């Protein structure tokens, strides 16, 4: 049975110290943290980790963040968006600096995962910081696998990984919901855009959708409406409190 086979490979997840190797500003609201973790085994693209912070009085807070980097041993990258009234994300975005130590546990999750062995075509649909786990998939995608990322952002300034995304050519289409920019689409990800950019249902694309709840609901229903099999559409939602 499939479930048992998966469980057989698992080891208990312990908290481990992660040392911040580098901090990169991606947009005014998001930063990528490069974390070194001794003995870290490469994750599978789409997985997330738990991060735990401890205050001087022993108070602790935990949150989950998607892994952005391609899998590698000993290191992972998280891209974190600041939620203004959040408890953990403002610390990670504004306060953390190289040399700091956090605690990390994971990687976690096995369903919202794409690896080259799954094959293509690969359709990724991201809203806002929902692009983060999709980026991990795009970064490992071999050139021979047909892929497309449809990425919805409010403005150009808020586009995460902007320079790197430009190197993917036609495989990446960015649409902006709040402003016009030359060369980019304008408007929400809707049925028409998905029909145009998202492979035909008969090609049986592997589909991954990540973003805020409303975005994921709208995109997933539109994809099913276009004739994509519901079991081919894997979703990850950031609730209104994705903090």
């Amino acid at each position: 049975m499939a479930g048992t086979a998966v469980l057989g490979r698992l080891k208990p997840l312990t908290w481990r110290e992660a040392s911040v190797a580098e901090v990169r500003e991606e947009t005014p609201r998001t930063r990528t943290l490069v974390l070194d973790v001794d003995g870290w085994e490469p994750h599978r693209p789409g997985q997330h980790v738990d991060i735990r912070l401890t205050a001087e009085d022993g108070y602790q807070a935990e949150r989950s963040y998607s892994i952005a980097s391609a899998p590698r041993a000993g290191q992972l990258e998280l891209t974190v968006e600041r939620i203004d009234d959040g408890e953990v994300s403002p610390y990670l975005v504004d306060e953390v600096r190289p040399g700091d130590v956090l605690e990390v546990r994971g990687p976690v999750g096995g369903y919202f995962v794409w690896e080259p062995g799954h094959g293509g075509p690969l359709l990724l649909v991201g809203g806002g910081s929902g692009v983060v786990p999709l980026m991990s998939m795009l970064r490992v995608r071999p050139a021979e696998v047909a892929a497309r990322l449809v990425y919805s952002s409010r403005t150009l300034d808020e586009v995460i990984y902007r320079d790197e995304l430009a190197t993917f050519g036609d495989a990446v289409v960015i649409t902006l919901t709040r402003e016009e920019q030359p060369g980019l689409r304008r408007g929400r990800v809707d049925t028409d855009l998905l029909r145009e950019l998202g492979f035909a249902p008969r090609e049986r694309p592997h589909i991954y959708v990540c973003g805020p709840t409303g975005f994921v609901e709208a995109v997933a229903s539109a994809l099913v409406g276009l004739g994509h099999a519901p079991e081919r559409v894997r979703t990850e939602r950031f609730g209104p409190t994705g903090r």
Partner: protein
Amino acid sequence: MLYGWPMPVSRGFRGRARRDDAATDRVPPGQYLTDDFPVLSAGPTPHTPLDEWTFTITGEVDEDRRWSWDEFQALPSEQITVDIHCVTKWSKLDTSWEGVSVDTLLDGVESSAEYVLAFCDGGYTANLPLEDVSGGKAWIAFAYGGEPLDPEHGGPARLLVPHLYFWKSAKWVRGLSLRAEDEPGFWEGYGYHNYGDPWREQRYWGD
């Protein structure tokens, strides 16, 4: 920098103002309180028409039991106010539901089963010990906050097992299969804890 044992202090992290009201006792370790109701699902939201909806008790039973939506609505229901805890770290206090007790559905069922597998539209499943869904601990809920349960939150009906992490409260539930042997459900097969007690922080396999 100060590094206490056993965990490192996060330089400059203060966290939210500590709460010392009664609510703190109701928040399991590693959880935070929210007033929202976040949605987490593995795939598209199914929309099963009510005239096609049934609820079935099957598996290790002498005879399957099945209710149509109208028959299900005619069963005695209860108002339930409970705290809920999601494995993704949020907890929400005093949520109010209406539903049919699983005890009502299992009343008179002869079975030697010790486990149940809840099965759902969309292919989702969740496994639980039978004793965790009986004795007034679990319901099939069809209303939330006095309104029909929204499809995003599992409508028309979801399992409600508030003493376990909320993924066990399977959305879009269509029945319970009684089992002699335990078998991992959907998330359990992907590394989440087989039982999922929030007070023991059983989030992942091996916790």
